[in-house]
């Protein structure tokens, strides 16, 4: 390769001209905010009143019990909701792939609908279904499954269950679609060969289907982890500002409340976001290493 050729390509003005809008937008809406938030974290910020405090926001964060509690909730949701969801999505995908011959299309739409529903609309609906005198409690009381209404929204334990149910309802169908595509990409001849060798259906599932689906499971686990790390709407609307008594407070909601609700403290909120990004990045890294390290 001639060095001159690369140099001319570098100087290709037309090329630069074409990508200029994308680069400008990226700089304005990605690089600039990231850069300026580096300045924000060094400030104690109350609206227009700000002062340089160095790393004091991080010291405050280390002692902020509400923040650690919120982070704990994020992890709780990640480690309980995502496995449940992946498991359910896998079963649904297998059923959709083999079990149902006809109506596959309508079923796919049916499972995919929740994740294109408006966040606010579904949170409000869940609220009505789950309130103490709501449909679910009345149904279970009527069937005598329970003898006292469950505080789906005002009991610290059940409110967490509510969030897990809501997230599972919303995202299982979404992940099912990925698994379905993964399943359809597995060559049928592999299964035929396994059958000839005398492997049963269950053995085929664990020895062939599952290992070949690992990349898809990995993708779905990583995106779900990042999504759950940023969990905001459900605790904000469904369980009222992370209620009851902060039992469903998450880091993203706490950041929002620090900046736009309680304190106008954009410096502290930025410090919290940096920590959130670092943790989400670390989790994604670990997952990729654990599940996909071999290739």
């Amino acid at each position: 390769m001639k060095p001159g050729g690369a140099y001319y390509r570098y100087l290709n003005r037309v090329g630069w001209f074409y990508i200029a809008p994308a680069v400008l937008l990226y700089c304005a809406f990605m690089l600039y905010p990231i850069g300026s938030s580096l300045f924000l974290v060094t400030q104690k910020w109350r609206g227009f009143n700000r002062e340089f405090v160095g790393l004091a926001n991080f010291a405050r964060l280390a002692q902020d019990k509400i923040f650690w509690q919120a982070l704990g909730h994020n992890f709780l949701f990640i480690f309980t909701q995502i496995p449940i969801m992946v498991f359910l999505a896998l079963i649904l995908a297998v059923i959709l792939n083999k079990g149902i011959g006809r109506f596959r299309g309508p079923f796919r739409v049916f499972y995919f609908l929740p994740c294109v529903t408006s966040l606010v609309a579904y949170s409000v609906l869940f609220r009505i279904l789950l309130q103490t005198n709501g449909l679910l409690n009345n149904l279970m009381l009527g069937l005598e499954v329970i003898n006292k209404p469950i505080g789906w929204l005002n009991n610290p334990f059940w409110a967490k269950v509510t969030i897990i149910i809501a997230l599972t309802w919303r995202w299982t169908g979404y992940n099912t679609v990925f698994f379905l595509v993964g399943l359809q990409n597995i060559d049928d001849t592999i299964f035929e060969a396994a059958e000839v060798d005398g492997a049963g259906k269950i053995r085929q599932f664990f020895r062939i289907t599952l290992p070949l689906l690992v990349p898809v499971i990995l993708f779905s686990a990583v995106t779900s982890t990042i999504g759950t790390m940023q969990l905001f709407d459900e605790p904000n609307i469904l369980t009222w500002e992370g209620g009851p008594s902060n039992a469903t407070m998450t880091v993203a909601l706490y950041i929002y409340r620090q900046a736009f609700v309680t304190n106008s403290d954009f410096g502290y909120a930025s410090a919290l976001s940096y920590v959130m990004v670092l943790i989400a990045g670390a989790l994604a890294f670990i997952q990729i290493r654990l599940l996909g390290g071999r290739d």
Partner: protein
Amino acid sequence: MKRVVTVSLFILLTAAVVFGGGQGSTGKMAGKTVTVWCWDPNFNGFSMQQAADVYKKIRPNVTVEIVDIPENIEGKIEAGLQAGGAGLPDIALFQDFVIEKFIQNYPGIFVDLKAEGVDYSKFAQYKVGPMTDGSKIYGIPFDTGSTGLFLRVDFMRDAGLNPDQYKRNMTWDEVIDLGTKIKQSGGKPLLAYDSTSYDFLRILVQSTGTQFFKPDGSLNFKTPALRKSLEYMKKMNDGGLFYTAEGWNNWVSAFNNGQSVGLLNALWIIGTLKSKSENAGKWMVAPTPLVAGVPGARNASNNGGSSWYVFASSKEKAEAVDFLKSTWASEDPAALEFYNIILKQAGAMGTFLPSRSGSNYTANDDFFYKSQPVFKDFAAWMENVPTLNYTANYLAMRDSLRNAMNLLFGGEITTIDETLTRAEQEYKQVTGQ
């Protein structure tokens, strides 16, 4: 040649799209537009529209445009302020409890209306306190949140009680006694209570005149008023006198559908009661019960209430100020009449004292039991409402108390002391103190 035509057409069209908008707005230059942000088209939005109609007759060339911001208006305003005033309206409505946060955290964003000649002695004084900053006063007070105890007379009769005996200044002990009697005769829980809100506690504490904050801005939680109020609430909760609802809609449907005997809240709830017309004649309003034994306690309190503010960044500052002054702060008969209209049609009671001469202030209201003149009662109670100091940290204080209170009612913590300590800890964590 064809290419040249295409390109020039394209440029022309682009120019039309880009500059067309500009032409549209310059076309309006003949008249000026004052934009107002508020959040309830049936209440404050409706009231502002009435004021705008009055102003249309005074200055026909000024258009008042009212924009409904139903969700988190303060967050939107903060985003605009951080962006150097971009996208903000000329006038906005602020809850009284958040205004000190804006005045302290964002100095200089509001127009000093005292300097513009507004006479604040004509407004209810408890409304003026929070909007005062040294020698400057920023807002035009809008509505009062004068409170009362709303009770269903039919449910009281079912329990063998005479409602007329309870239309008087009661103490909370008497109210608990009333609730217990109804409960024992197989009746409903006495009061609908919203577990996501702290308003109930606020009404009790404000009725004593005790502050949530000390003058230096630090918390003032360990007071007889707060302890006593929590004790009463705990007693009602544990005794089954609360119908506990989750959130506003659930709470409203609880008392509108007769799942509780009554509720404790401000007069602005009357419109919501009236939306259920089959309940006409069944409601009565007693004064806010007394937190007995706390010095300074009265049979009057407040919940909610908001005020209008002009942004200093407004391009139509002069018009915005003139608009507010010649409608909300004017003794002109037309202005006083619009106060009279919004009281009747939206249930919004202004805090401009001369407006209380309006006919609707004393009128009998057939929706209520024995045509009780409820607005007359609420206006009389309003005069006794003690001022509450909100400070810039009111929201953090409010939420920490609500959270601790829910733990107390849920049985996760058992004593009032622990509740107050818990709330204080959370407040310090959230505000970084």
